[in-house]
């Protein structure tokens, strides 16, 4: 009887586990099948490196280079602000802060992670965009910088909580040994705990990068949505905002091109994940 239930449980878990694999494979296949036709029609070079995105103009042009560079610049900017901040917050909370403060701060970080991204976009639209305009004396505050700030706040909670888990998992014996050798807690945290948790932290960075690359709603509300080259104060369009904003009315080649953009996004995320997998393996060896 007991053995039977165990077998059943094993079967259920295997099926569920395989289901997620099947989902990923199905989505990959679908994206490739629906994304390739437009790339074939437009030409890979013209699609990836074409400088003008104007799919609904009278002479439509389907070059995604400005969108691609804007997306990458937005992600890089968000990581440049979000990763150091998140990591320092995590080190402080997990290794240096008194338990009282940790118990107080942690729920707020979790709450921050739970706020829907459209709310970040709304605050960005009514506070950040006018704020940037006044602060930097530019004609209009919407654009890449506003998107970067919104994205870095958006990835912060994930960065903090994932880094915290990684730091928590460090073998206490290592830290105790360091302290016993006379290193102070700050030295121990940065020279022992962080290096030991680097795999988990790298994972946190990649997941944050994916989040920043994939976010559409919050970005759409502050970036201006005109497909210019990326510059801090110029209005930009991201890969995601092109898909989200144009899918509702696109048809024909434009619709197919939006699927191709989704495929490009998917490939970028895939590359990120492979990169962290490889660095992780090297770290272990």
């Amino acid at each position, binding site marked *: 009887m007991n053995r039977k239930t165990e077998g059943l449980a094993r079967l259920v878990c295997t099926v569920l586990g395989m289901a997620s694999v099947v989902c990923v494979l199905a989505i990959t296949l679908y994206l490739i099948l629906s994304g390739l036709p437009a790339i074939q029609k437009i030409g890979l070079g013209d699609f990836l490196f074409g400088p003008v995105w104007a799919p609904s103009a009278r002479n439509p042009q389907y070059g995604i280079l400005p969108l691609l560079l804007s997306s990458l610049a937005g992600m890089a900017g968000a990581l440049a602000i979000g990763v150091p901040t998140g990591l320092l917050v995590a080190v402080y909370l997990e290794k240096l802060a008194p338990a009282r403060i940790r118990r107080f701060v942690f729920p707020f970080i979790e709450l921050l992670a739970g706020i829907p991204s459209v709310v970040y976009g709304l605050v960005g639209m009514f506070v950040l965009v006018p704020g940037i305009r006044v602060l930097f004396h530019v004609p*209009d505050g919407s654009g890449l910088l506003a998107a970067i700030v919104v994205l870095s706040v958006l990835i912060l909670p994930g960065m903090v909580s994932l880094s915290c888990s990684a730091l928590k998992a460090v073998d206490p014996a290592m830290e105790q040994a360091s302290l016993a050798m006379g290193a102070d807690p700050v030295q121990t945290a940065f020279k022992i705990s962080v290096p030991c948790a680097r795999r988990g932290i790298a994972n946190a960075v990649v997941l944050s990068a994916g989040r920043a690359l994939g976010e559409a709603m919050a970005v759409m509300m502050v970036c201006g949505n005109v497909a210019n080259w990326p510059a801090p104060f110029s209005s930009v369009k991201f890969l995601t905002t092109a898909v989200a904003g144009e899918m509702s009315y696109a048809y024909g080649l434009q619709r197919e091109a939006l699927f191709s953009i989704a495929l490009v996004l998917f490939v970028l995320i895939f590359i990120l994940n492979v990169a962290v997998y490889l660095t992780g393996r090297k770290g272990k060896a």
Partner: protein
Amino acid sequence: MKVTSLFASLFLGLSSLFSAGAPAITTDGSTSMERAIGFLSETWTGQNPVTYNPTGSSSGIQAVKEGRCDIGLSSRPLKEGELEGGLETIPLCQDGITIVLNPENEVDSLDREELVALFSGQEKTWDSGNPVVIIGREAASGTRSAFEAALGLRDQCDYRQELTSNGDVLAAVSQNPNAIGYVSSSSVNDMVKVPEAPSFASTFYLVVKNPDERVQAFLDFCFSQKGRAAIESAGCIPLS
């Protein structure tokens, strides 16, 4: 026991959601027509409820062509290629496109040449020396297409922001003292200032494909005495 009753009520609630009486008359399209359709569906007393999905003119036309809705709403005339597949357009009412400024802007009037210079990016500063910030609609917007056609500036406007609804344009213009934009006249509110400027008439169209009895009843209602009154209270001029 409690859990079962909870599930039972949940199930009942869900099933009542999906079996809601008579099939709805679905409309889809122009965000500028929100008020007109809203007033019409409120006064409509027919059995079938009227639903509205604000997606934009091009999207609405596409939806009715693909049979995803009963009535497409367009705030611009249909282009040649779009009329294929047995689509029929019915002019519903006239609305205007209104130029809007930030309340802090000192400009009180703009003529047609000034508007062309501003929106095409030839004139980059206001009289005060501040830079002009142009807020417009997304490429598929009927309001944008009607406005650009009226100024002879198709695909030539120098937008700083392209937003997806009248409300977004009003919000963005109200947030930036140097902004100028255009919205459907019936959606103007007091967040923005309306300068003296030429007004651009635009026509709202209903787009249908082989309407059945259910849809035809609503179309008849739109052109009845009551329907015309509803359109007038929405701030538009009914057409016969």
